[in-house]
């Protein structure tokens, strides 16, 4: 059993003179679902990008540890799964080719059994050999879940997870989130009540915008 912890210690993010959030702290030590809430423009996406190491906070520290050892930023990508509306997959490849390239570039084994299971769950198995450019926006969103979960990450970050999904797609996503939450830390950034209802604890980002420069 792996032990993954995420510790966000009083981080602040500014873009130029604009304060996005100030002194945000979060501690996730065991599998479960955490929520990040706030209206549009409140900094949810910026916050989750900071958690993934894509952008750095202006101050404060984010620590990811695996079995007590701090994960280096160069290795972080292998432990994180990420879904977001602004994530774009390669249109010129099929879904299967995309997933194979991701596994190779990550340097992890292409887990055929797990990928087939996820393709079936997200109703993409019959379309796995189609080019991504032929996919609808909902199918692309479902494929992003495969991208996020195929390497069995210990931390799954979902930014607006149900955007572009129909009702059956939403049900599938909630089912998979429930399964993953038994073994991984799930963070959902959303302003949708049905997403936040899954979370055991919700961090409201508007509470961390107290100071204007």
């Amino acid at each position, binding site marked *: 059993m792996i032990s993954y912890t995420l510790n966000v210690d009083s981080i602040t993010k500014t873009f130029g003179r604009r304060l996005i959030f100030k002194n945000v702290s979060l501690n996730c030590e065991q599998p479960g679902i955490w929520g990040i809430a706030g209206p549009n423009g409140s900094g949810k996406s910026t916050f989750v990008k900071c958690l*993934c190491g*894509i*952008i*750095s906070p202006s101050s404060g520290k984010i620590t990811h540890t695996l079995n007590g050892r701090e994960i280096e930023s*160069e*290795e972080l*990508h292998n432990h*994180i799964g*990420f879904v*977001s509306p*602004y*994530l*774009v*997959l*390669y*249109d*010129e*490849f099929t879904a299967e*080719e995309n997933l194979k*390239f*991701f596994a*190779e*570039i*990550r*340097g992890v084994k292409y887990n055929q059994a797990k990928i087939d299971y996820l393709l079936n769950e997200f109703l993409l198995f019959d379309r796995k050999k189609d080019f991504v450019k032929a996919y609808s926006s909902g199918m692309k969103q479902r494929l992003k879940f495969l*991208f996020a979960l195929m390497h069995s990450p210990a931390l799954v970050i979902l930014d607006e997870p149900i955007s572009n999904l129909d009702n059956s797609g939403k049900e599938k996503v909630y089912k998979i989130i429930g399964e993953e939450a038994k073994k991984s830390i799930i963070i959902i950034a959303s302003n949708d009540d049905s997403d936040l209802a899954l979370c055991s604890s919700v961090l409201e980002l508007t509470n961390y915008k107290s100071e204007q420069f």
Partner: protein
Amino acid sequence: MTSIALFRKDLASELRTRYAINSLLMFIIVTISVILFSIGNEKISDYLSGGLFWVVVFFTAMSGLARAFVSEEERGTSLLLQLIASPATVFSGKLIFNLVLVFSMNVVIANLYTALFDAFVIKNLLLFSTAFLFGSIGIAISSTVIAAIIAKAGSKGTLYPVLSFPILLPLILILIELTKMSMDGTAFEEGYIEVAVLICYDVIMISASYLLFDFIWKD
């Protein structure tokens, strides 16, 4: 190995979209045709043809090598790369891709040039091959890191040659000098200093690129 996988992804993508290959080939054909038409029946000096060779190489590189990073940025897939690979892997993968592209491009230019320009006669093939090898490596390294910088900028098209010019100028100057020596039939030993400067340029560029790439790649 992961950088090789990234290279394979880029190669497969290029073979499907043919964006860089087509623009490089078209540029080579158009540039060499323009030179041929402008010369007409005039005889040009050997040195001038050697200089023009590297001018064609420089501008061809400017027309296609930025694609490595610009296409990721324009399509919005850079975030995906940031999520699956470390910065060093991304830079290595893109560099390998640009190395293959530069070598292929330079081989095509050299063959066309030799066939079409009577004045372009190399007497010391070893010296020219050395300059060709390390020159191509230098162009690939510089183009890759400059492409990474300009991919984040607004006016990518104009910025690329402008930013590349001061960085590639010392390289092009030393390559023109070595080509001149190769055309004169100068012994390899006499070109040691120029070859050493060329290798030093490559080593400095690759070290600086790996050191800076983390800051360029992440917002």
